[in-house]
């Protein structure tokens, strides 16, 4: 890709644009990208990958990690969900995913990183250990940061009145965590402990662009029952 030909000002999707997303139905990271695309009104082709039999395209497009999601725009592959979302936001006009203000953008990136590095791994660990006390305590500590952030800002979403990068990043907490909790009979994100976060979860999954991007819940619950060994 020649740097001189790149669009520096957001544009509309062009008729001749080829937009593909390699992922699998049910991937929380792939879903992030889909929500961002839907928010921007971008048409794309979803290419289902079998993680036990990865396509040649996937291995070529993401040789470093060989993982989904991989976003391919006019033959140019991009990996890592947050990198993809920043690309989508910069390139295409429409609803902004990141804030315009440099400082608020920095804050949004910080929370997105925190969710990926600390929050999601801590929550996932609880499911892996079937609710081990120490793991729950650790997850609660991380979730409390998100609860505080919502409390302090007093907005409906992390992004303000509308969903943004941080909300999209926290999709796992809003939907996947709840399905895993149900599958395992564990209570983690409860109204008592995290009232703002629980309210956010309900508001978030009811947004149309989010609803359209989520996998069927019953199937996810069944998968978690199998995955964490409580079928």
């Amino acid at each position, binding site marked *: *890709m020649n*740097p001189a030909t790149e669009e520096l000002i957001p544009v509309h999707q062009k008729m001749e644009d080829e937009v593909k997303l390699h992922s699998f139905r049910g991937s929380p990271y792939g879903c992030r990208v889909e929500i961002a695309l839907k928010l921007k009104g971008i048409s794309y082709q979803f290419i289902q990958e079998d993680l036990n039999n990865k396509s040649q395209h996937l291995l070529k497009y993401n040789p470093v990690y060989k993982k989904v999601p991989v976003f391919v725009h006019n033959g140019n592959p*991009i*990996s890592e969900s947050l990198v993809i979302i920043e690309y989508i936001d910069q390139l295409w006009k429409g609803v902004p995913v990141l804030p315009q203000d440099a400082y608020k*953008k920095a804050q949004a990136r910080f929370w997105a990183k925190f969710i990926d590095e600390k929050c999601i791994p801590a929550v996932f660990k609880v499911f892996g250990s079937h609710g081990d006390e120490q793991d729950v305590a650790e997850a609660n500590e991380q979730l409390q*940061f998100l609860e505080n952030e919502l409390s302090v800002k007093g907005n409906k979403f992390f992004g303000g009145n509308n969903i943004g990068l941080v909300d999209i990043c926290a999709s796992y907490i809003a939907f996947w965590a709840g399905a895993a909790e149900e599958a395992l009979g564990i209570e983690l994100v409860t109204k008592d402990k995290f009232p703002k976060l629980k309210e956010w979860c309900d508001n978030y999954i009811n947004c149309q662009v989010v609803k359209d991007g989520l996998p069927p819940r019953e199937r996810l619950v069944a998968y978690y029952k199998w995955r964490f060994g409580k079928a």
Partner: protein
Amino acid sequence: MGKGSEIKLIGTPPSPYVNRVQIVLNLKSIDYEFVEENLACKSELLLTSNPVYKKVPVLIHANNPPIPESLIIIEYLDEIYSDVHPILPSGPLARADNRFWANYMDTKFFPLFEELRKTPGKEGKKAIMKQIIEGSQLLEEAFVKFSDGKPYFGGDDVGYLDVVLGCFLGWTKFVEKHNEFKIFDEARTPKLLEWTNRIWSHEALKDVIPESETLMNFYMILMKYRP
């Protein structure tokens, strides 16, 4: 020139993540106040500035609340001081490529150094060193692609990945000497080896990357308090 000391950087000299931000401040000729932190006894300022991670670096700009995380700080500085020495390229795809590799370095490559330090025994260390060497080969390919025959990842001058990787060169040299192996060498990573020599003497880096002795002292502290 800079805008006075409206920028404060909380950090410790041996931290490569802190050095990263210092390099960018230098490249953009931004004046700043360096607030040195004692990591064994963290200040109230650091704990309130970064309550989530309690780590350095943290940037405080004028009256804004603090910004932690070196890569986030760099993108912030690049945006508000966009007229001097842009760090990231401007196009969305070029940015995505740069951010992907910075993410690889921070989540896959650099953590291997800490793992190497903490792993006891020769066999264990050998396995990690093998992974570091594999990583360096990926970085060699990345360098060839990004530089496209020019001296830096950023092309004619230092850019984002030069800073993201370059800040670690004090530590890579230290680790090479301490463990008696070569991370960057003529046979496997010739272009990157040339690059390390070139960037090591770049103005923006040379007064920032600590001397081996400072790193040795810091290493001994880490071995004692975080074995």
